[in-house]
């Protein structure tokens, strides 16, 4: 088991965004989360990566429980230092890439391993170049993000996340800021990672991609998981009316 989330609840100013959500991810699994805008998909990822604090629920990475519900029903987080050591288990790829614009491609990828993980610079450089080569970006190592296309920038962002060797990688709508042509090159990279058995959770609107790549699909709506299962079941034979309705709207 890589990640276990239980009974996650999250409200923003009285609006319940996540209502008792649970998510379990095993090593090597690719889980896709689909659903309409405002269904809480991104919030779930942001809670899993501690960018948002949950109101209640439990989050466990590997064998460390980072968040648990305390006696008063409110979530209790591990102290800062211990929480930080849990953070190294995961990476996150943002919709808006969020590369550091003042760093070259190579420095974007190398900087955290060198200055956060304090690893040997030469060793990191070799690894970073290998990852960039896999992303087909090794020739752009010295370029700056502003000189790259959106698709290239997102691949750098993926390389940057991979360089820290996370046990699980989250993607928050990784292709939503890209045009269809560039979407393809990013999905190809994610697909390649899936073949290498990288554990991933992908929030996406790319239905054919989710169907082809994931081991499991979660359909979320209004803060609850409406349906989940093998992609062929969820896409091919959805059990819930809400799922059918959502998928119909996508088949245009």
């Amino acid at each position, binding site marked *: 088991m890589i990640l276990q989330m239980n009974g996650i609840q999250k409200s923003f100013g009285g609006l319940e965004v996540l209502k008792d959500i649970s998510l379990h991810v095993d090593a090597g699994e690719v889980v896709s989360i689909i659903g309409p805008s405002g269904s809480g998909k991104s919030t779930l990822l942001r809670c899993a990566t501690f960018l948002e604090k949950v109101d209640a629920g439990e989050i466990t990475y590997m064998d460390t429980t980072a968040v648990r519900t305390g006696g008063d029903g409110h979530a209790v987080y591990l102290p800062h230092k211990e929480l930080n050591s849990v*953070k190294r288990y995961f990476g*996150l790829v943002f919709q*808006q890439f969020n590369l550091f614009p*003042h760093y070259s491609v190579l420095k974007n990828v190398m900087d*955290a391993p060198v*200055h*956060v*993980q304090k690893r040997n610079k030469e060793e990191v450089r070799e690894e970073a170049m290998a990852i960039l080569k896999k992303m087909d970006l090794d020739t752009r190592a010295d370029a700056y993000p*502003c000189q790259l296309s959106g698709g290239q920038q997102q691949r750098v962002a993926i390389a940057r996340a991979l360089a820290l060797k996370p046990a699980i990688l989250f993607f928050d709508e990784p292709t939503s800021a890209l045009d269809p042509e560039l979407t393809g090159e990013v999905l190809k990279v994610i697909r390649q990672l899936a073949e290498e058995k990288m554990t991933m959770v992908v929030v996406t609107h790319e239905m054919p991609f989710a169907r082809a790549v994931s081991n499991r699909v979660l359909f979320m709506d209004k803060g609850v998981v409406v349906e989940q299962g093998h992609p062929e079941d969820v896409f091919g034979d959805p059990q819930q009316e809400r799922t059918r309705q959502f998928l119909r709207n996508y088949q245009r």
Partner: protein
Amino acid sequence: MSLSTMLASMGEGMLRTCLIFFLTLLFSLPLGMVIMFMRRSRILLIRGIAHILIAVLRGTPLMLQLLMWYFGPFYLFGWSIRGYRFTAIILGFSINYAAYFAEIYRGGFESISKGQYEAAEILGYSRVQTFFKIILPQVIKTILPSVTNEIITLVKDTSLAFTLAYNEMFSLAKQIAASQTSFMPFIIAGVFYFVANYAVAFGMERVEKALDYYH
């Protein structure tokens, strides 16, 4: 009085002008950062203090502030401090400019997207690392043009030190012009300010160019 004598007597004033200029920059640039952090503090009281401080410092003439710093201790508390004149000038200038710099910094920090902080957090950077490695370099690039403007204004504002009868360059120029019934000191003063500001603009443009490799 010959031109060279005039220049020689104004020379010391130029040094004093430069001294005001550099000391003000030295104190106001970091102090502005402190005021900016107060202005962005989570604690309402600190935020409020910074807000009022900035409003007063920007809302009243620098000349008046200089007079306040110099005469305030005596009239308010009955203190007479020896050799306080120059300190009062540097206090007045530094604190006034710090308020302006604080607002420039604030604009710079607010222009950085939340995503930069979130990416840094996910990658495990500490708060200090995030500030110095990720955020500050981008802020500096953003605020450079506004800072250049402020520095150029400072060069010219140094002449306000005459309010406290401090013999900086412009005060001397006026004295010499009056005693010699000559227009020349004003021309020299004008050339001095112009050259100084041209140098500032040139230098800052070089820095901007150096940071032009990304946007």
